[in-house]
């Protein structure tokens, strides 16, 4: 009861916070319409083309606008009235921009990347009991280097090698003894090969891409329905968008194009699953270690297969998907082959048939997705497989200047649901409802972006929720900072158990090159 009240309090606080931020967003920050001053003479108007005459905050603009007057005087660059007859004279040579003459051929290879420092600060945790990990304060201080080497052999052939290395010094600062080996192994240091592939065209209509890559399916931006191929990094949920969390897989992909349609055939050679919160982390839902995970190997017999058909038309797009793949989420299974019998985490093989459709009308974008997925397994119903029907609808509105608003909702319905599935450890629901709302607006000539994201499971968050309010600011072309707050509400879903104290502030600074 106390716990329930606490959840309710967090949900209320979250909703109030979201509403408050929305009010600020739309009342204070959105400029209201104003009207220009009338009655200026043409000469006054013309004078304003000349900044030096305008007296426009000369102290700050002087350096910037240095030479503005010179350019005005350099009328030779503008074809003057005297030049007019020549310009229309057949014998007149065309004026060519100087830069046309020195076209530099770019190098085949280009190296780019970024180095970033990110930190999270937990402010809602209480003082721990004796022997418990102190989760207050600093929870992440991660330095990350991302490198990407691209080779462009021609307009149709290219290759990429990318990777990242990261070190989180928060564990050394707080004391490594405070954390489990699972946490230290998966969070403290990380080296990973990113997108690494070769890509080319076999014919005018047939492309091939082999290597580690990301394939995005579906039309939704915040919820996954048909986007089933690449796993996600879910270790610190809510901090960044789903879009930023996809992990690449080794695949062979063939794309065939004909008119407005394309057909893609994909073989996934690398079997890899979501990076979930590890035992001992503040997002791990319970205090006991998980059972052994039986991961299928990346061998030929386990190859995943996928096919998509995409049509792109004026105002609307449609896609059809089929995939035969492993479930990124595991289920528990009783293993009787040894003594004593044990429990393992296993990944079911699933088959998905889906479609996605969107249509643009005016400032509105309507998004829909539907999927029928067969092959789910549950601990409480051994030997039986279940299917699920997922249906998503979403709306995006771009009618306010520099602003995007979107809302998406999905219902995941387990077909032939058995009441036993509600019991732990499955804790499944016949209908799992999720909705997200997102507001994003650019300010200061796109240097500042404010984003509010609300992601809620269950109608009012009874299954769990989080809200994120973030700001991204470009200090220069190369340096960007991001900061914000994430508020969590615990709920009935396993991933949202006991996370209401994980509210955190985050800050990230990135240098791109």
């Amino acid at each position, binding site marked *: 009861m106390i716990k329930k009240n606490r959840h309710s309090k967090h949900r209320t606080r979250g909703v109030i916070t979201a509403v408050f931020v929305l009010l600020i967003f739309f009342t204070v920050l959105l*400029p*209201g*319409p*104003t009207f*220009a001053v009338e009655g200026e003479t*043409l000469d006054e*108007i*013309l004078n*304003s*083309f000349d*900044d030096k005459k*305008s007296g*426009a*905050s000369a102290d*700050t603009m002087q350096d*910037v*606008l240095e030479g503005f007057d010179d*350019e005005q005087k350099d*009328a030779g660059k*503008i*074809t003057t*009235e005297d030049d*007019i007859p020549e*310009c229309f004279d057949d014998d007149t040579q*065309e*004026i*060519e*921009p100087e*830069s*046309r003459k020195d*076209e530099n051929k770019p190098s085949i290879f280009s190296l*780019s990347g*970024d180095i970033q420092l990110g930190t999270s600060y937990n402010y809602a945790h209480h003082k721990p009991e004796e022997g418990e990990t102190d989760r207050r304060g600093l929870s992440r201080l991660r330095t990350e280097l991302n490198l990407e080497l691209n080779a*462009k052999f021609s*307009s*149709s052939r290219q290759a990429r090698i990318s990777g990242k290395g990261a070190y989180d010094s928060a564990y050394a600062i707080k004391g490594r003894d405070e954390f489990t080996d699972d946490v230290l192994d998966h969070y403290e240091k990380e080296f990973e090969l990113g997108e690494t592939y070769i*890509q080319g065209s076999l014919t005018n209509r047939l*492309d091939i891409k082999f290597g580690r890559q990301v394939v995005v399916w579906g039309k939704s*931006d915040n919820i996954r329905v048909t986007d089933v191929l690449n796993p996600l990094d879910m270790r610190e949920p809510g901090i960044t968008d789903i*879009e*930023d969390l996809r992990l690449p897989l080794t695949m062979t992909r063939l794309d065939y*194009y004909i008119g407005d349609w394309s057909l893609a055939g994909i073989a996934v050679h690398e079997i890899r699953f979501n990076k979930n919160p590890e035992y001992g982390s503040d997002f791990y839902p319970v205090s006991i270690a998980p059972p052994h995970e039986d991961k299928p190997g990346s061998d030929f017999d386990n190859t995943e297969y996928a096919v998509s058909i995409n049509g*792109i038309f004026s*105002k609307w797009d449609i896609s059809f998907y089929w995939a035969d793949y492993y479930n990124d989420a595991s289920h528990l299974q009783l293993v009787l082959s040894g003594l004593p019998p044990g429990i393992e985490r296993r990944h079911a093989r699933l088959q998905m048939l889906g479609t996605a459709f969107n249509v*643009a*009308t*005016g*400032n*509105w*974008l309507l998004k829909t997705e539907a999927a029928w997925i067969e092959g789910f397994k549950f601990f409480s119903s051994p030997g039986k497989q279940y299917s699920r029907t997922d249906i998503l609808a979403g709306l995006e509105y*771009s*009618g306010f*200047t*520099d602003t995007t608003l979107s809302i998406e909702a999905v219902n995941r319905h387990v077909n032939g649901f058995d009441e036993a599935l509600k019991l732990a450890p499955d804790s499944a629901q016949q209908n799992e409802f999720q909705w997200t709302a997102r507001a994003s607006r650019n300010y200061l*000539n*796109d240097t500042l972006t404010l984003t509010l994201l609300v992601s809620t499971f269950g109608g009012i968050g009874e299954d769990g929720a989080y809200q994120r309010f973030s700001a991204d600011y*470009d200090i220069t*072309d190369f340096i960007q900072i991001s900061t914000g707050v994430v508020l969590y509400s615990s709920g009935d879903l396993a991933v949202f158990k006991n996370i209401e104290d994980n509210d955190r502030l985050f800050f990230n600074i*990135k240098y*791109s090159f």
Partner: protein
Amino acid sequence: MKDKRTLFFIPILIVTAIVGFSVAPAFADDPKARVIMEKVDARDDGDNQTSDMEMILIDKKGKKRIRKIHAFSKDKGEDILRLMFFQHPADVRDTAFLTFDYDDPDKDDDQWLFLPALKKTKRIASTDKSGSFMGSDLTYSDMTSRNLEDYDYTFYEKAKEKEVNGVKTWVIWSTPRSKEVVEETGYEKSLLFVRQDNFFVIRALHWVRDGGYKKYMDIKKLDLIDGIWVATEMHVTKKKGKNTAHKTILKLNNVKFNQGLVFDMFTVRRMEKGF
């Protein structure tokens, strides 16, 4: 049977709606000004064009940011297909923007944005083109062609002609005929300076709908390339009163026409593969 009061109020509501939600033209359309604008619209702007675009964005404190774009465009009948690849800064490199700019005023443009960091092509549904283009003082509406039928054109009442930098121009008001056009472009009205010799708009002053800004667009360099007039340098200054709020210097380099671009160039496939 309908309530009599309802029947009485319906015409009033209709009249109120028409008066309240439409922008009445400030001036009647002047056929002579319209003829000039028709010549502006009919001026050959080339086909199968490639160019390198550089935008220098300068804020009121003098801080500069640079955007570099490789751009392609091709006519398809009266429609224009445009594809832009962003090259600089590093965090937007290889982002691509594809636009089908339809001549039919009743047909909204098709737009797609490829975000390489997300590995995703996203359809953009927005008739509101008043948003900043890549953080510059240009809007998306400045990057697309305008429909003459959406505007009334009249000569500036105090001076029909004006010499600008030694060149004779006509000075013409461009007034949106509907609130929808104002919302779409973000401009309440514009004063255009049209060169009399080649029908090129070399200066434009836009009254911005939001924020009380005025936007001064000034062609600084106009070149004849392959027989086509091209503004290869333009300064766009956004001011509030006499104070400059932000400025954009737009330069076009390596402008080439008749490059034999194929329609397959203007596809999502090409966006995702880069140029």
